[in-house]
Every structure is written in structure tokens, then in C-alpha cells.
């Protein structure tokens, strides 16, 4: 009697498709739990954590925003190895607006997000036509170059950076603005990617020539995707500037490029929940390991390799599969 492993949808999932979800509370709970849990967690956590871990939560939210920004680009077919560019440009825009023009953070942060988006899109415009690994390499190089140019020409404060920026009045305000932004980004971009617009973007990733054949101007779509992603990244950078009241060369560090990629690798690409989950796991892990000093980065590298090689689909897809389907042994029919 030969057996094979069979994977079938769970009963509750089938019962809660379409309009039948309204038949009972259990079905509605099944559908809404995965959406409500992150929302409740992110809204309640700031209240129950102690100040040190609230700072960590801030970092989690900022890196989660960066990871979402990376995922938007990745789902449009543009893999970027340089999220630090968006982050740094947004941080410097906000710092400059605040320091040299005296604009308050409430206006500087949104303005920096949009200005950062425009600047990064214009910077990457010449290389938008490149594919695959070449685009990735250009995005890797530009932050390194900007870092060195700032160091060499000493503009915007040079190696010391701009410090003493104004602070957001209340600690709770900055935490909840970030949480709201994170949840809006997570659910909003999820909706965007599931819509027709997102379908075009995913099509560009799969086979851009066929999308061109359909009469769609892919360059315009790529520019828009780049603008959205860089605006999100710039927003994260601008928030970081006002939380730490300092901006300097380290905002272009390799760290801010690698962590979002690691978060999406760990959490799972293709759905923004994976990016947020990955950031939620990695950032506290790296904080907890801070006691080990230099060994922390070694752990990081090994952790990353194990995930890329062993669980390439990411944790989120694994959990989602277990949530929606179950496996059993079945007989092989003759």
C-alpha cells in the first residue's frame, strides 16, 4: 500500500469563502484574526512596554517601513540593494528643512517624505531601464558614493552631521504616528497590490516585454512604483531624524540596506505582512544580542544564510500555509 502526502484546504477556510463568511461568528473570526492581530498588537504594545523596549518598537516600525518599501520594489521587478539611499535622502531632507529653514517636524516630515521621493526617483531615472542585477548594483553603489561625497566635501555638516534638531512634543505622539503609518502602509499597500494596478506591477516583474506588448507604458509604472517606495523609505528616514534629533553620514550605512532585505528574506516576500513580521523578529533579536558585541553581526550573517538556504519562502508563507491547509497521508490510487 503506497502512501503519498496530500495537502488540502481546511474546512473552515472553504466554509468562509465569499459571502458564506457571514454565516457564523467562527468563520468571521477565522478571516479577521490574521488581520486584527497585527493591528491590535501594534496599537497595544506601546502601552504595555517599558521605555527601553518602546525605543526598540520604534526601531521595529522604522525598519518595517523600510522593508515594506523594499518589497514594493521587489514585487515590481526592481531589486534594490540600497534602501539606505531612500532612508538617507529623507533623513537629510528633514534635517535640512528643520535646521536651515526652521520648519516644525509636523510639516517637515511629510514634506521630506515627498521631497525624498522626488529626489530619489530623479536620481534613479537614468538607470530605470536596466534590468536585474545591474539595477541592484547601481542602487548598492549610490549610497556608498553619497556617503563619501559628503565626507569629502563636508556639506550639510560633513562627518559631524546636523544635531540639535527639534523634537516631536510628546513621546506617545511619535510612537502612535509611527504605528498608524505602519498599519496604513501594511494594509494600504496590500490592497494596492491586490488591485489591477498591482497586477500590472507584478506583470512587469514576471515578463516586462509582454506588458509592453499589451500597450502599457511600463516606464511610467516603474517610475510610480519607485516614487511610492522611495517616499515610504524617506518617511522612515525623516521620522528617525526627529526621534534621535540627529542626522549624519551614518544614515547611508550598509546596515539600512541589508536589514530590510534580511527582514523580507526571513519573513517572506510577496506579501507585506512577511516584511513586517521579519522586521518584528530581526530587530528585537539584534537588540537582545547586543550584549555579545561583535559576535552579533556574525550571528546575523549565519542566521541570514540559514534562512535563505533552508526556508526560502519565509516564515509568513509557512504560517499562512499551515493556517489555510493541512496535510495528510493518502493512498496512491492505482
Amino acid at each position, binding site marked *: 500500500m503506497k502512501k503519498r502526502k496530500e495537502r488540502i484546504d481546511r474546512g473552515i477556510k472553504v466554509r468562509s469563502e465569499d459571502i458564506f463568511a457571514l454565516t457564523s461568528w467562527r468563520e468571521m473570526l477565522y478571516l479577521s484574526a490574521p488581520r486584527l492581530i497585527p493591528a491590535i498588537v501594534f496599537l497595544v504594545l506601546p502601552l504595555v512596554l517599558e521605555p527601553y523596549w518602546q525605543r526598540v518598537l520604534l526601531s521595529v516600525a522604522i525598519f518595517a517601513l523600510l522593508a515594506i518599501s523594499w518589497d514594493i520594489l521587489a514585487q515590481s521587478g526592481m531589486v534594490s540593494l540600497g534602501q539606505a539611499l531612500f532612508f538617507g535622502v529623507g533623513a537629510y531632507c528633514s534635517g535640512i528643512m528643520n535646521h536651515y529653514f526652521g520648519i516644525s517636524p509636523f510639516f517637515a516630515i511629510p514634506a521630506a517624505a515627498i521631497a525624498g521621493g522626488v529626489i530619489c526617483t530623479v536620481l534613479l531615472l537614468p538607470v530605470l531601464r536596466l534590468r536585474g542585477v545591474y539595477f541592484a548594483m547601481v542602487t548598492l553603489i549610490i549610497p556608498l558614493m553619497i556617503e563619501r561625497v559628503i565626507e569629502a566635501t563636508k556639506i550639510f555638516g560633513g562627518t559631524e552631521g546636523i544635531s540639535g534638531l527639534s523634537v516631536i512634543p510628546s513621546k506617545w505622539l511619535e510612537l502612535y504616528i509611527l504605528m498608524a503609518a505602519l498599519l496604513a502602509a501594511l494594509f494600504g499597500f496590500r490592497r494596492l497590490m491586490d488591485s489591477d494596478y498591482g497586477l500590472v506591477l507584478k506583470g512587469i516583474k514576471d515578463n516586462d516585454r509582454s506588458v509592453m506588448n499589451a500597450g502599457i507604458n511600463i516606464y511610467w509604472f516603474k517610475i510610480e512604483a519607485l516614487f511610492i517606495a522611495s517616499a515610504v523609505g524617506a518617511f522612515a528616514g525623516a521620522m528617525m531624524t526627529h526621534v534621535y534629533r540627529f542626522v549624519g553620514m551614518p544614515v547611508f550605512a550598509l546596515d539600512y540596506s541589508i536589514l530590510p532585505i534580511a527582514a523580507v528574506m526571513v519573513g517572506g516576500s510577496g506579501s507585506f505582512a512577511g516584511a513586517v513580521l521579519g522586521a518584528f523578529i530581526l530587530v528585537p533579536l539584534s537588540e537582545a544580542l547586543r550584549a555579545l558585541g561583535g559576535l552579533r553581526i556574525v550571528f546575523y550573517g549565519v542566521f541570514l*544564510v540559514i534562512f535563505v538556504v533552508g526556508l526560502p519562502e519565509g516564515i509568513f508563507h509557512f504560517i499562512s500555509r499551515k493556517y489555510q491547509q493541512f496535510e495528510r497521508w493518502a493512498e496512491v490510487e492505482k
Partner: protein
Amino acid sequence: MLLGTIVYAIINSVILILMSIGFNLTFGISGISNFAYGAFYILAAFVTWMLLNLLGFPYVLSILISIVFTAVIGALMYRFVLMRVRGQVLSEVIATFGIGLAILEFFRYLGFVGVEYALPVFIDESFMIGNVYVDMQRILIVLSSIVLVILLWLFVHYTSLGLAFRGIAQDERTALTFGMDSDRIATLSVSLGAGLAAIAATVIIPLGTISVSQGYDVLINALAVSIIGGLGSTGGVIVASLLVGFAQRFTDTYIGSHWTMIVSLLALLIVLVIKPSGLYGKQKELEERI
């Protein structure tokens, strides 16, 4: 001063060639990303140092052992890590970069930072070219890289193993039908690339001290030179290193030493925007841009 700058520019270019041929072999010729290249470079240097100073082996023996050791580590890295993600470029890059990061930071954690970590030069003499002092180690670098480049060119173009390296990058299935075991050849390619990194480290490191941050610089330089010259072409590597080497030295002398790295990065950027395959690249224009 001009003669001095030119002489040191030639030597700088040759150092870049030596650093890049290993990377070009795996990434360009065989199509496997090995971003742990800088880590292998530093690993070889530290293994030689440890054998020389902690165990007291003779210098030549420690060099040979460290070259073989690095090649073996390269092969192991392919077998246990790269083989599973073969073909997905982003995963390869991230996995190898993670390994490189782990190795380099491990050395930094163990405290291998400082002036005492230096390898002795082979022959301690100097030369005079015109009115410029050049030490023997640098002459040795020039000689050994000429020999290595010629050997590599002959290997890749005229031996069956070298042709197999190129075959698995061009079209893997056709290569399989010819009986070339793609995994075995890729293992050999990665370990040869790592071995070349070890040889480069052996010859170049005695010029200064072994520093962990040099590992990242080596990787960026090798990447820049390989891409500017065109992945896979040995002639391209030579021309690109000459360009970048001269640009770096002249910027250093006449503009300022902060700008040297910016020059190589800028050159890379310009090449990627105008002609991504590089100077001698063989990749068709259609595949690199839409």
C-alpha cells in the same frame, strides 16, 4: 612627480588585476556570485599569519597551506550553501554575502585588529626606476600577476576544464548534454576563485597590515573592475584595472585622497548607465536593458 605617479599607477592597476581575477573567474566566467570574496582574501591572510606566528611553520609552507585551505573552504561553501540556491541570483548574493560578513566580523570579534598583524615581505630590497623608489615586493606583484593572467587566459580558452567553466554559464542544459557535471564544475570554479583570492592576498598583504575593513574594499574593487571590464573577459579586466588604477592614483596625487574611492564608484556608475555589459562584455544588449 609625474613619473612617480605613473609608476605607482601602473602598480596600483596591477594590484587591482590581481585582486579581481579570482572574482572574475567565478562571477564572470562561471556565472556564480561569490560575494564572500573579500572574506576569503582576509581569511587566507590570517591563516598564513597564524601558521607563521603561532605554529612556527616556514613562510613558504604556510602560504601553500593557506592557499589550499581557502580553496577547500570555497568548495565547501559551494557544496553546502550555494548549490541549494543555484540560479536565483539574489539569494546567491545574499547567502554568500552573509557568509562573508560572518567570517570578517568573526575575525574582528576575535580581536585580530592591530599593527602586529602583518606578513613579512619576500625580499627586502628596493629598485630605482628613473628617480622613483620601488620596492621588490611591488615588482614581484607585477611579475606574478602577469604570469597568473597569462595562465588564466590559456586555461579558460584552451583547456577542456576551462571551456567547461564557460559552458555552464552560457547554457547549462546544453553543457549537461555534453556530459559536463554542472555541480562539480561549479565547485571547482568557486574553489579556484577562492584560491586565486588567497594568492592575491599572499602577494599584496605584505605591503601593509592585515585589516578587516580591507575585505570590503577588496570586494568593491573586484566588483567594480569586473563590471567595468565586462563580466567574463580577461582582457576587459586588464583594461578596466588600468583605467581605474590610473584614475585612482592621479586623483590621489592631484585632487585629494578622499576622492579615490569616489572615482572608482563613479566610473562604475557611468559604465552601468551607458553600457552595462562593460567594455568587453559579451552579454547581448537586449538582456541588460529593456
